[in-house]
């Protein structure tokens, strides 16, 4: 499990205005094939942290490394780095004027500059991976929320990124649509995809995560294996949060 480090943050800070600190001194490493899961109360800076890693939000202090390259150094081609990072959004954000295929194809054609045929082939392959090949020519508006998010995942993975960052990929979906997205993620996990996921899907976390990271008030409070969190979380805040989550999951 301890392959090469794919992505790393060192003492990362994101400060909104003077007093609103979203990310406080976060250091984290993800190695090849690892799946790490960030969880914690809403507003605790998880999403901001994830966006900082993909340089979609520019951090204020600290360093972000992708395969050893520091993305915070002046003059780094951030677009080139982003091309190697897959990102899946909570609210999906598919391109509404393009079909499922068009959504997946776009970066292959215009970022990786693949010829048309090759891009099409590759995009269909990605859609096959999320089991949506027959829906390739439908527009996002014609797909269910779960299907849309699977297209979102296909769009993120088609470029064979070094890592996929997923920001609460199921939390905006109706409960009955969550399962199909989790199944897709489970398939990716089986293939050894390196992933950093913000999620509160605890059964899924227990099944696939190599490490869980508890976030609160912009910082990492506690890290450990899923078993650690399910049986004996150390910090009081993590204990309370887990208790609430487990209760909620049971009631569903």
């Amino acid at each position, binding site marked *: 499990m301890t392959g090469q480090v794919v992505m790393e943050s060192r003492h990362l800070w994101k400060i909104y205005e003077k007093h609103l600190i979203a990310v406080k001194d976060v250091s984290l490493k993800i190695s090849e094939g690892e799946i790490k899961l960030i969880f914690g109360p809403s507003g605790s800076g998880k999403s901001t942290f994830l966006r900082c890693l993909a340089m979609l939000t520019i951090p204020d202090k600290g360093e972000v490394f992708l395969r050893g390259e520091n993305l915070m150094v002046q003059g780094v081609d951030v677009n080139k780095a982003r091309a190697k990072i897959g990102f899946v959004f909570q609210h999906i954000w598919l391109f509404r004027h393009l079909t499922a295929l068009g959504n997946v194809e776009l970066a292959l054609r215009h970022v990786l500059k693949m010829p048309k045929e090759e891009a099409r082939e590759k995009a269909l392959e990605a859609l096959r991976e999320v089991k949506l090949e027959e829906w390739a020519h439908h527009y996002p*508006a014609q797909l269910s929320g779960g299907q849309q998010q699977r297209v979102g995942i296909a769009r993120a993975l088609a470029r064979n990124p070094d890592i996929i960052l997923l920001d609460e990929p199921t939390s905006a979906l109706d409960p009955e649509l969550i399962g199909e997205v989790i199944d897709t993620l489970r398939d990716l996990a089986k293939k050894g995809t390196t992933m950093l996921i913000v999620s509160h899907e605890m059964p899924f976390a227990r099944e696939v995560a190599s490490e869980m990271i508890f976030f609160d008030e912009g910082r990492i409070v506690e890290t450990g294996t899923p078993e650690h969190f399910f049986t004996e979380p150390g910090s009081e805040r993590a204990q309370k949060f887990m208790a609430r989550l487990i209760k909620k999951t049971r009631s569903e």
Partner: protein
Amino acid sequence: MLGGVTTTLLISILSFLSGTAVGLPLGFLRVYGGRVAGILVDGFEKIFRGIPELVLMLLFYFGLGFYFPMPFKNAFFTVTFVLGLRSAANQSQIFRGAIRGVGDEQMVAASSLGLSRLRSIGYVMVPQVFTFSTPGLGSEYALLVKDSSYAFVIGVLEIMEITDRIRKATLDTVTPYVIAAFLYIALTFPIATWLDMWGSRRKKRLGL
């Protein structure tokens, strides 16, 4: 008369297209270009939306035309040029609203793929912005057809000028104007309506 219709159409279409060519980048500059660009675009819009096009046409034709006969002494060019600038100011506002309507999320999603800002705008924003803008663009086109009638004061042979000549020749002060009125409706209404319908259909299909 047919020549007049062609000229009116040419003025409207050419000024509309040049208005789009200038107004679309201005709209994006206004939203994504930062403070200075924003102020400049705002100034441009205020000037060309604030001054009556008749004043501008006369100023360009007689004023600028005195110093630069090429190209401003060409009445057709000056009319199209002025209406094009005015339309750019209007379209910039239409597009700005549409860009906000499409939403910044689409830009974020595009950058997450590694697309540069310019490519994100070109491949993701522009196609959606046009769909969003259709009602506004339809009325903008209609406005241009109507405003092209000002061209008659500097002697461009469009519908209005020809109407005026017919009135002078026949001394009939009603029929020529009624015919002109119908011609203007025929030139504006179908295209504006079609654009609006096309836009609504597409919006519905894409869930915009």
